[in-house]
Structures are given as structure tokens and as C-alpha cells.
């Protein structure tokens, strides 16, 4: 039995007003894992801790079996998509996507070919010469995804990837993420405040309230699990319209 691709062991991180309180869970290889919680519950902090941006006060984050902080940032090969995409504004879409290869000193021709290839797959080959500032939200996200996936990372971290999209684009992106997981054989950990989304896409769902992970379940058992009162209230468990919180 191989190590899970990502494991949180009693991780506590404090950053300004945000807190992760003794978080423990694991993500298996090629698994799709969703963390749901309110906006501002520290979900971004969890992803940042998973990527090893911050040293936990307590506990440890293990990536591929060893502490993520043991490997320098630029060698970890983890894909990360911030909510605001964080595309480099001074580079074109092509330069953004090709960035990982350029950092590894690949020759220009190889970079160009790889970039065109992946851009085509994500449907952004038509905007390669444009700067991020002139792209639509959906285009920016796909460029950011292509950039994150260029080096075939075993783990992809997505921060509220679908919340800013219109319903039609959202559906398209759901299909794209599922395809990505298959094509790139990577595990995906994403955070969201949309329960339906989590149930639709994930193999496992973790519920986070007040910096604590209340539990991890499969989508079918999201509402009928033996949660405490707080979590039931959050999930609106027996709510007719499927549990879409109005404070989301």
C-alpha cells in the first residue's frame, strides 16, 4: 500500500485572523477531494499549508510520504490555482504557460511546442499572445490551469475554482476538471462553499468549520452522517433545495 499523496497530521497554522486547528486527513493518489466550508473559514490557508508555504505551529504536512517543507519550494512540483489565478501580469498567456519549462532551462522550440499543445487542450490557443489583463475570467482560469499542469504535478490544489464562473461555464469546467484528473493522473484537492459541486465531483468531502475539520465522508453520506449540531446547522441537512447556504 503506497503513501497517500498528501497527508495532514494534526496540523495547526495561525496566520493573522485565520486558523487551522489540528487538521488531520489524507488524499490518495489520483483522488478528487473537496473541502467545504464558509467563506473565510481558513480554506485558503489549508491549501497554502498543503503547498508548504507556511511552517505549521504543530503537526506536519506530508507530501509523497515525506514532510513537504523538507523539499525546497521550487522542487516540490505541486500545481496551485489561487482564487484570483495569480497569472503574471507582465507576461503573455504563452509566457505564463511556458514559465515552468523556462525555469527548467528547456530550449525555446520545445517550450513553444509544449505550450501550444497544452493551450490547445484547454482551449486557449487563440489567446496566447494576449496579456492576462485582456482575458476573460474563464480564459484566465484555463491559462492558469494549463500553467499549473504543464509539468504534470501529482497533486493539484484549487482554491474555489468555480465560484466566479457563470452556470454554463461552470458546467464546462466541471467536465474539464474530471478530464484533467484522468489525463494527468493527478490527485485534486479543491476547496469550495458549494455543496452540490462537492457532491458532484469529489470522491471524498471534508467539512471545515471554525478552522476545524469536522469529518470526512463520501458524497452520498454528506447529509446523513452523524455530525454534531453545529455541522448539521451549517449543512442544513434536511433542507429541500439541497443545502445551499444563503451565507455562501
Amino acid at each position, binding site marked *: 500500500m503506497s503513501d497517500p499523496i498528501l497527508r495532514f497530521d494534526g496540523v495547526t497554522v495561525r496566520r493573522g485572523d485565520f486558523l487551522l486547528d489540528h487538521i488531520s486527513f489524507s488524499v490518495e493518489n489520483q483522488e478528487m477531494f473537496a473541502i467545504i466550508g464558509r467563506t473565510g473559514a481558513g480554506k485558503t490557508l489549508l491549501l497554502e499549508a498543503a503547498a508548504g508555504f507556511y511552517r505549521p505551529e504543530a503537526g506536519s504536512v506530508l507530501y509523497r510520504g515525506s514532510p513537504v517543507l523538507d523539499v525546497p519550494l521550487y522542487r516540490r512540483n505541486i500545481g496551485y490555482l489561487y482564487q484570483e489565478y495569480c497569472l503574471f501580469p507582465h507576461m503573455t498567456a504563452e509566457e505564463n504557460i511556458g*514559465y515552468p519549462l523556462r525555469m527548467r532551462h528547456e530550449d525555446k522550440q520545445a517550450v513553444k511546442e509544449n505550450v501550444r499543445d497544452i493551450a490547445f487542450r484547454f482551449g486557449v490557443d487563440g489567446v496566447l499572445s494576449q496579456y492576462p489583463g485582456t482575458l476573460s475570467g474563464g480564459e484566465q482560469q484555463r491559462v492558469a490551469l494549463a500553467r499549473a499542469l504543464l*509539468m504534470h504535478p501529482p497533486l493539484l490544489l484549487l482554491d474555489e475554482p468555480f465560484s466566479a464562473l457563470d452556470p454554463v461555464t461552470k458546467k464546462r469546467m466541471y467536465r474539464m476538471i474530471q478530464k484533467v484528473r484522468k489525463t494527468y493522473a493527478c490527485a485534486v484537492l479543491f476547496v469550495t462553499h458549494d455543496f452540490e459541486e462537492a457532491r458532484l465531483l469529489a470522491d471524498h468531502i471534508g467539512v471545515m468549520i471554525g478552522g476545524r475539520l469536522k469529518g470526512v465522508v463520501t458524497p452520498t453520506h454528506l447529509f446523513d452522517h452523524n455530525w454534531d449540531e453545529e455541522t448539521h446547522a451549517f449543512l442544513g441537512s434536511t433542507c429541500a433545495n439541497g443545502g445551499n447556504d444563503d451565507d455562501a
Partner: protein
Amino acid sequence: MKGRRPDTFVTICMLLMGIAVVSIGSNVLVVVLQGAKSLFRSVSQSETRFAIGLSVGSACVSTLVCFLLAVPTAYVLTRSSFPGRSAIEGVLELTMTLPNIVLGLSLLIIFASPFGKVLKKTGFAVVFNPRGVVIAQLVVNLPFAIKHASAAFRVLSVKLEHVAGLLGASPFRQFTSVLLPLSKNSLISAVILIWSRALGEFGATMMLVGVTRMKTETLPASIYLNVSVNDLDGALSSAFILLMISAISFLVADWLTRRGGKRSRYE
């Protein structure tokens, strides 16, 4: 929509701007009008030409060294955390409030000490030497350069560099491919600002290198000499030359910061 009343707040701001323009512009006018009179006489003296050369040359060198020190310092101050960082930041800002003449005195003491004499023997004389002009400018400007560079870096979210790191960029590559290009315009402005300050620096320079014609005489020093003998026209024509050099440098900065393709939807 004819005859729309102009907004009060905007009007007040424009009035205040008018005061600012007059405050600065009136002095520019004085220098230009009075200085133009004996400009030709000034420039035809080899002493003035030497002073121009020394001023511009020393400003270039001191600004270059200044930023070679300030940029890495600002990088560490804004991107790393280590014990005593606030203390170091505090120390770096301390000399900003000191009058330049005091810095000059302090430098004089340092370079006239046994340490300074040893340096002199190895060929690196500073006191009463043109090199001292560069050092005086450097020491006076360094805290400001660090502050400007830090401000330029602080404004940029560190997320971009984290992302770059995850994409395979070492800290050095993060710096050169993300941080520097994005702070380019702020840094260029800071360089021009510091260069102008170096050009006009006088108090510290005078203490450390004195005023020796054709050797350590910068344009500000030449103004001092002129004022000392009541040659006000001569002083103002040197000031005029300084203004012209400044104006050219601003044009250069403007040209440098203007380049770049269409970056946003509304350009």
C-alpha cells in the same frame, strides 16, 4: 449635459495644486530667468565644465552602488522574516533625520581615523579626494533608496512569487522573473529621485572632501563658492545647469517607464 457644476472636492484639489505649482514654479522661474543671464559665461569656464562632469559622474556611480546595496536589502526586509528585523529596519532609517553636514562630519572622522589612513595607503584615498564625493552621496542616499525599494516590493503580493516558486523558480529566479519586472517602474522612479538627490548633495560632501577647484568641486559646491563672494548671477547660472540636467533625467525616466504593450482591457 451643458452647464454641469464642477464638483467641490475636485475644485479644492485643483486650487491646492495651483498653490503647489506656484510655490515650485516661482523658484524655477527665478533660477531660469536670473541664471540664463550669465549662463554662457559660466559654461565657458573650464571650472564649471569640470564641476558638471564631477557632479554627473559621481551621481551615476553613487546611485549605482546605492541600489546595488538597497535592492537586496529591501528584498530581505520585505520577503524574509528573521529575529531583529524591525530593529534593523529602525537602524537603517535612523540617519534620515540627520542633517547632511553631520553625516559628512561622521564620515570625516571615520576616514581620517587610522582605518582611513590604512585605506589611503592602499591607494583608496577618500578625504579631500573625488572618491569622497561618491561616498558622501552614497551614505546620504542609502536609507532613502532602501525605503523606496522596500515600498516598491511591499506593494506586490508575495503570492505571485509563491506561485512562481511552485512552478519551479528558485528564489533568485523568482526575484528576476517576477518581482523585479513588476516593480520596474517604481524602481526607475526611485533611481531618478536618488540620482537627483545625489546631484544636489552638498553638506556631507563639503565636510568630507572640501571644495577644491578642478578636483572636488561639484555643481552645488560651485554655487557655494559663488555665493561666498556674492556672485549671485554665477550661483544662479550653476543652478540653471542643475535644473537642465534634472529635466533631462526626468525625460529619460519617463521614456524608460513608458515602454510595454497593451496590458489591460482599457488601455
